[in-house]
């Protein structure tokens, strides 16, 4: 007689958005385990049709409160590519600086308040704070520093308002950025301490052999430009995305599943970025990675917390470098003339590659828009991780099984709202 049990958990905490994890167990065997996203489509691509292309950075920023800069950077660069616009090195550096702010705040929050409790047996960051108060304080400072940096460069920390086609509405004064340097240096040191703390966690030995996909840039750790590359040999410009990748629909999810056309499941995000761009990290940050147990490639999704820490240290140092060399762009934006065309661009959101494509007419009105967010691209890989952990813990209690599957999802810091909100866990045992 097979085991028949049904467990429903109404909310998976510490992820963004609304979805569910469904697990079906027949006779002690896991027959289905997947992330089901039921949040209604948000229709941003349709909102964009008929709007002026110059509105795209501000409209798309509203897709996400945690990574609005990613949406602004992918959209603004895609539009500028249509207009043949190169805003120049000062504006590029300022945009990279803004992106550093987003990495710092997003990664610090996820690492300590959302992800670390899984490794230490706490229900949430609040419970963890009682025993790890100093680490939580450090994380809050790092996050605040990232937020402040975003406000200084782009007007405010959530849904910034300073990015425009051609550059910025206002370039920050040198003194405003220089005033940030002590805090950023302290945030870097705090993150090193957090990273060493996380280096002592016990990590499950899950290794996944996914094709890793990320931007690659010849000279620097990629944030806002480069080419799309993969461990499977992909090396293409942004405009060729559709030649290698496709999105497919599954009935249980309102988010599309990304796949490499010829090979299937792939993974984007910190593990992919790190593996494909390890050589671009300064030697002392590579040494720090080695100290906490990371090699040049990491395929264990649980250890993404460590990779996020490495990226945060890098983002702090990159921010300090950019501020040290800052030359105020004058003017803060370059003029342009709208023209008809099609453009595509990708940047590296904290959660992974974010690809945008726009078609505009001769007056600069958007005719079509497509947005492929990282969580949609990662959905198949997340499903596979949930399945692997469900199989590993199938004989344990529902509570243990639930935690294992929740953690498998949280490893990827998914932003379900971006991909199309509550994550519910449904376990059916027959």
């Amino acid at each position: 007689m097979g085991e028949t049990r049904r467990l429903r958990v109404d909310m998976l905490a510490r992820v963004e958005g609304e979805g569910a994890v469904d697990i079906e167990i027949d006779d002690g065997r896991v027959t289905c385990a997947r992330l089901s996203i039921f949040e209604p489509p948000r229709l941003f691509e349709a909102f964009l049709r008929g709007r002026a292309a110059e509105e795209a950075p501000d409209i798309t920023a509203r897709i996400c409160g945690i990574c609005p800069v990613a949406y602004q950077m992918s959209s603004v660069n895609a539009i500028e590519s249509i207009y043949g616009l190169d805003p120049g090195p000062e504006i590029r550096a300022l945009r990279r600086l803004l992106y550093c702010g987003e990495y710092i705040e997003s990664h610090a929050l996820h690492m300590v308040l959302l992800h670390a409790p899984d490794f230490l047996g706490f229900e949430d960051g609040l419970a963890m704070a009682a025993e790890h108060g100093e680490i939580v304080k450090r994380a809050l400072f790092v996050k605040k520093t990232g937020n402040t940096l975003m406000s200084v460069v782009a007007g405010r920390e959530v849904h910034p308002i300073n990015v425009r086609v051609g550059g910025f509405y206002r370039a920050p004064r040198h003194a405003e950025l220089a005033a940030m340097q002590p805090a950023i240096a302290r945030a870097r040191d705090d993150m090193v301490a957090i990273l060493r703390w996380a280096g002592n966690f016990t990590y499950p030995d899950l290794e996944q052999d996914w094709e890793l996909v990320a931007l690659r840039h010849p000279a620097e750790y990629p944030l806002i430009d480069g080419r799309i590359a993969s461990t499977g040999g992909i090396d293409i410009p942004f405009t060729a995305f559709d030649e290698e990748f496709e999105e497919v629909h599954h009935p249980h999810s309102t988010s599309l599943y990304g796949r490499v056309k010829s090979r299937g499941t792939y993974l984007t995000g910190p593990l992919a970025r790190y593996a494909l761009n390890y050589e671009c990290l300064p030697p002392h940050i590579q040494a720090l990675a080695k100290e906490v147990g990371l090699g040049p490639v990491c395929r264990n999704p649980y250890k993404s917390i460590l990779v996020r820490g490495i990226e945060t240290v890098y983002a702090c140092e990159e921010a300090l470098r950019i501020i040290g060399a800052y030359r105020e762009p004058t003017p803060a934006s370059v003029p342009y003339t709208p023209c008809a065309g099609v453009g595509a661009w990708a940047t590296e959101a904290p959660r992974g590659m974010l690809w945008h494509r726009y078609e505009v007419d001769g007056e600069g009105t958007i005719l079509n828009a497509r947005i492929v967010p990282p969580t949609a691209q990662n959905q198949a890989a997340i499903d596979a991780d949930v399945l692997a952990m469900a199989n590993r813990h199938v004989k344990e209690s529902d509570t243990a099984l639930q935690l294992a599957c929740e953690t498998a999802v949280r490893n990827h810091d998914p932003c379900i709202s971006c991909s199309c909100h509550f994550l519910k866990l449904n376990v059916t045992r027959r």
Partner: protein
Amino acid sequence: MTALVVGFGNPDRGDDAAGPLVARLLVDRIAARVVERHGDALALLDEWREAEALVLIDAAAPMGEPGRIHEIDPCTDELPRQFAFGSTHAFGLAEAIALSHRLGSLPARTKVYAIEGENFAPGAALSPAVAAAVDRLAARGGALLPPAAEE
């Protein structure tokens, strides 16, 4: 004595503006630094770290009595944290207070005033009952500050 008053809420979201509006009215009526804040409440922890007395004014979710003023001492009373740490986008005042309490950085003299709202639609005006509550609360001026412990 350093006292801090925080009016928390989005001024463009109907009754969510209650906190900032009370703060504006209190500027000349209370011996405290008065600020308006909205968005990420976690950033407030650093702001109130040095304060000896703290007053937090926020709108509360509808519970059937718009304009009712709830007074809470977070050092003794638990704030409702329906979605506590459930979402990366929703670190509200309750989570920030709870975290600060755990970290030992919440001023011992803290008072939360929560005005029950009715309509939180973007761009909406304040509901009449909430507008009246804003005036009523602000009229209390310095009496809003939690008293110092008796020697």
